[in-house]
């Protein structure tokens, strides 16, 4: 098979993977080596769906021995199969990297024969890149559940970031749809990776030559909407994963029906993109805004309101804490004001040291008042066109409704997958 055809097949099979960013590690260039890495990550292009292209994202092989119900590569599906040789993949990576097409390689694979065999093939690629080609760019590699810990460990010594897909938000769903995987098989490597990362940090702190293990950390992803879990369950799970496994990112992927299965949504079901978007917003609130999952959703209200972003939703249920005085409110509280993002909050904090801020000054700082005005005071003055004691009225004004939801967040216009313009940069500045 021609390399071009293999590339088509194995790109096509990997494209639903969303965790494709090149962020998390700063590594200057080295004499005689090829490449460097920037902490914020770099996007090199944007595909027709608007998503960032940062890494050469391919599968090593799509010739799978497993049969996960939600997957295009499952054994029981008829379709073209291909497998890269390690040399082919090395040539592609280096050739693309030298032309500044990519930041590096994102390597995942279907299970060829068995997990260990698959992992050995991937390891061969990474070794050739790092040792023979002296490649110093970014590598993200997926651990295959069920691989022996020794091999997973070796992968991590060559990679910048590792990930293990949690796949589905509950054990019951996993048992139903991915019978060859289990919670243990997934969480096992996740725990191993976490521990090795911690050890390697400790070693590195003691002597500089220690080998770095996945210095950009680990991430995971799960499919949303294929199974019946609520937003609350999903968010609590992510929060738990962040805490327990010290993940850098949890990615959500709206389920796109690619195969027919009686346990899955029908093939013409549109992917729940708006829900995915809300979950990402909530995820940022957890990571950068000091919120906890249980503040955002409770058992009586286990799912997000599609019309309200999660921060607005929270604020409207806690109107007793508003309005906040911009010139005095603690930074943590500024972060909780709908419409004020991390960057705006930081600018306010810096600017109010020099002068009392009024609404004109806020505008000059680049603070968008469209939503914030319902929740703030400047020097005791309000700019809210509505009475502040009626959350319902305000909800109507801040909701993504009708025209606006179609114009600003129509499901098909949403950044299909997370705004990965190197997600971390974007998330930090995301005006929620």
């Amino acid at each position, binding site marked *: 098979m021609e390399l071009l055809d293999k590339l088509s097949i194995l790109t096509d099979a990997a494209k639903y993977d969303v965790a494709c960013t090149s962020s998390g590690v700063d590594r200057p260039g080295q004499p005689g080596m090829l490449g460097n890495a920037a902490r914020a990550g770099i996007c090199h292009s944007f595909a027709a769906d*608007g998503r960032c292209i940062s890494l050469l994202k391919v599968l090593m092989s799509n010739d799978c021995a497993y049969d996960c119900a939600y997957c295009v590569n499952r054994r029981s599906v008829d379709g073209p199969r291909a497998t890269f040789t390690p040399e082919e993949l090395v040539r592609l990576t280096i050739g693309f990297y030298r032309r500044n*097409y990519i930041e590096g390689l994102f390597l995942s694979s279907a299970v060829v024969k068995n997990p260990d065999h698959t992992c050995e093939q991937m390891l061969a690629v990474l070794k050739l890149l790092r040792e023979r080609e002296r490649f110093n760019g970014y590598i993200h590699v997926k651990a295959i559940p069920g691989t022996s810990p020794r091999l997973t460990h070796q992968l991590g010594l060559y990679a910048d970031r590792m990930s293990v897909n949690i796949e589905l938000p509950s054990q019951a769903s996993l048992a139903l749809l991915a019978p060859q995987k289990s919670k243990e098989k997934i969480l096992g490597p996740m725990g191993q990776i976490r521990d090795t990362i911690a050890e390697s940090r400790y070693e590195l702190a003691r002597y500089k030559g220690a080998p770095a293990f996945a210095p950009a950390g680990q991430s995971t992803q799960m499919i949303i909407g294929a199974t019946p879990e609520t937003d609350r369950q999903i968010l609590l799970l992510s929060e738990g994963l962040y805490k327990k496994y010290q993940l850098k990112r949890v990615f959500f992927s709206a389920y796109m029906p690619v195969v027919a299965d009686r346990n899955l949504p029908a093939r013409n079901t549109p992917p729940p993109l708006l829900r995915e978007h809300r979950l990402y917003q909530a995820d940022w609130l957890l990571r950068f805004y000091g919120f906890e999952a249980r503040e955002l959703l409770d058992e009586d209200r286990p799912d997000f309101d599609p019309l309200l972003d999660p921060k607005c939703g929270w604020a409207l249920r806690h109107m007793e804490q508003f309005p906040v005085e911009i010139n005095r409110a603690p930074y943590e509280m500024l972060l909780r004001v709908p419409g004020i993002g991390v960057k705006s909050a930081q600018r306010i904090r810096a600017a109010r040291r020099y002068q009392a801020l009024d609404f004109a000054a806020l505008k000059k700082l680049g603070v968008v008042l469209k939503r914030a005005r319902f929740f703030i005071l400047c020097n005791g003055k309000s700019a809210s066109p509505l009475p502040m004691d009626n959350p319902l009225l305000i909800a109507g004004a801040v909701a993504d409704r009708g025209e606006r939801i179609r114009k600003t967040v129509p499901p098909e216009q949403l950044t299909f997958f997370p705004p990965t313009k190197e997600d971390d940069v974007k998330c930090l500045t995301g005006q929620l």
Partner: protein
Amino acid sequence: MPDRTALVYRYDGTYAGLLCCAAECFRDKRLPADIQPLDEPQGTLLPVKAIATDEALARRVELSAEKRISRRARRMLREAFLTCMEHKEMRMIRFLLLGYKYGDRVRMLTTNEDVYEILQALRYLNNEANRYIEFTRFSDLGEFLAAEIAPNNNVLPLVAPHFCDRFPAENLMIFDKTHGLGFLHRRGGEREFFQADALTLPPPSEEEAAYRALWKNFYRTVAVEGRENPNLRRTHMPMRYWAEMTEMRDAVPIHK
């Protein structure tokens, strides 16, 4: 120094030259009506004074900016010179004067029009530089990896260090078609800027063409079909960059 003379300064278009214009203003205790580079085509009806470039004088002005204002203000001026802001020379000189008065706080005086415009222009410059770190495409010419760019701001001095760091073992050439400025980096570390009106690159070798085809194929395949989002794509990757991008070149409309 509010008093404007009915005089236009002309300088050689270099940063050192502009700093000498600044020195001239201080000496004269008056601002000119305008400052223009020598190669500025449109003439002026006002009398012109040519300002000679004196490197030592320029360095003194720069050092005084650092001492009397701050290191950051000095860097800000250097970068402001790379922007395509209108009237940048006069704005920069007024900024310098303001800096002598207010010290480092000048960088925050956004209510002042000059400071505001300079900050905006710098934001534009840095955004554009970042875009070229993302979107510059090299071709392997055998001896060299070569790229052409067409930025509005003079971003090459900001972009070049990134690629030197990234490709220390390669020979590199980047040419800015807008400003007629090129940059060379040789394996081993030697680097230089050069000036040229235009540059003709040889047609792609067979191998180069093969990699381009592979990349275009990857680019097409990785998009999820049925999810086309041209607006979002254009937001992140505006069309004016497409002509120099391997994967987008074919999509550039002939009539702009």
